[in-house]
């Protein structure tokens, strides 16, 4: 598998494990760390993550178009 994610702020560490899931994501709380889940970009399917935006403030919408 070719990984060519353009993520610049983080070092790539290729491991076999999925990132840890939040214990109770139904309750995102102030002060909680957002999980560094790696997901495909809708544009090119490449791996990306909210962690790619470290150093910036992020406004994240988790939604569906329905």
């Amino acid at each position, binding site marked *: *598998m070719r990984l060519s994610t353009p993520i610049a702020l983080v070092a790539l560490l290729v491991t076999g494990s*999925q990132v840890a899931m939040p214990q109770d994501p139904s309750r*995102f709380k102030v002060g909680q760390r957002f999980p560094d889940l790696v997901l495909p970009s809708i544009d090119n399917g490449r791996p990306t993550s909210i962690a790619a935006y470290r150093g*910036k403030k992020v406004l994240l919408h988790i939604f569906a178009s329905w």
Partner: protein
Amino acid sequence: MHVPVWHEATKVLWKRGKVQVVGILEEQHPDRARLFMQWKRMDWPLMVDSLNLLEMPEVPVTLGIDEYGIVRLVNPPRKDAGRLEEIFLSKTYEKPSGAALERLTVPDLTRTKALAASGSAAALRAYGNALFLWGGPARLNEATEVYQRALRLEPADGATHFHLGVAYRKRYDSEDRQAGDFQHAVDEWKTALDTDPNQYIWRRRIQQYGPRLDKPYSFYDWVITAREEIRKRGEKPVLLSVEPGGAEFAQPSNGPEISAAEREAPDPKGRIVRDKGKLILVEAAVVPPTKATGLTARVHVEFRPNVRLKAHWNNEAGPLAVWVEPPAGWQTNGHYFSVPNPPEPVSVEPRRLEFELKPPGDVESGVVSIPTYALYYVCEDVNGVCLYRRQDIQLTVRLGGAKN
């Protein structure tokens, strides 16, 4: 709508680089969200989470995340959308102790496969997820097999049932579809929901294809308006890989034109020759309600000319017709359904029909076969022999088990 309201209020900040706006989609067909984004002129990056690995119990959710990856805002009220600078951007947050830049963990198929060899359900599930996300269409079969292995170890694992359902539906929408994929997807989603009836995302995935009365609101009726408005702007709407079907619109008239006019059964004695060679491939799925009330089920039937046999619809003859004859006491929105022919003489497009079935009130459980057949005009090749054929459709409704 929630997200467009936020976009309007924050787009200037986003354009000026004051904040990074990002979306994560909890949707089976993410390209539909691309159309939505085009319609609303939202152009920030999107990530796809069709499997719901975030384990979201509901959407939409809006979060403010600081420079260190710490959540600082959770679902701020919409009235605060215009105050983002005040409530979030102007604030200085302390770097958490020990919060060095995190290393991003990128799944690797070879390594996740090696870990799955341990045979634990968790490792198998992780490998299945990696295959689904990063293996491409060629690894989708393997993903379904790995999820099945995980479920043999932990049969009550609702999330893996949901993931398997998503994979089945994705394969159904691909050229590598296998018989029964759609029904298997629905069955897996139903099993998942039975393990956790409060999981709204899982419930919505069933409702997307389920009976109309089971939906809290429509799913994709906005697609029609979006395309009209995008074209009026002189733009070309984003193409969808899978067009929404009748169940996904608010009004059934937006699906195939269904004639529910009462008429006599077209082949009551079964005299029309059966399509034994399967010139037309038929796939049927019965989607149950997610609530016990009503018990109406929605039936999806798809017909595809068999490409391997070079079969074509013969559009110069009559339309594809379906006759449904449920047992006494059952209700349906029609016995006879048809799909009109397109203008060209022959074609190979899939044709879909949807209808709903409601059992008698005194029947609460069991498995019921619904006699159903299709009649169609099909040609063996573009210039080949054209035939009139019948195909009996295996339609089975499972009653009961809707505990929530």
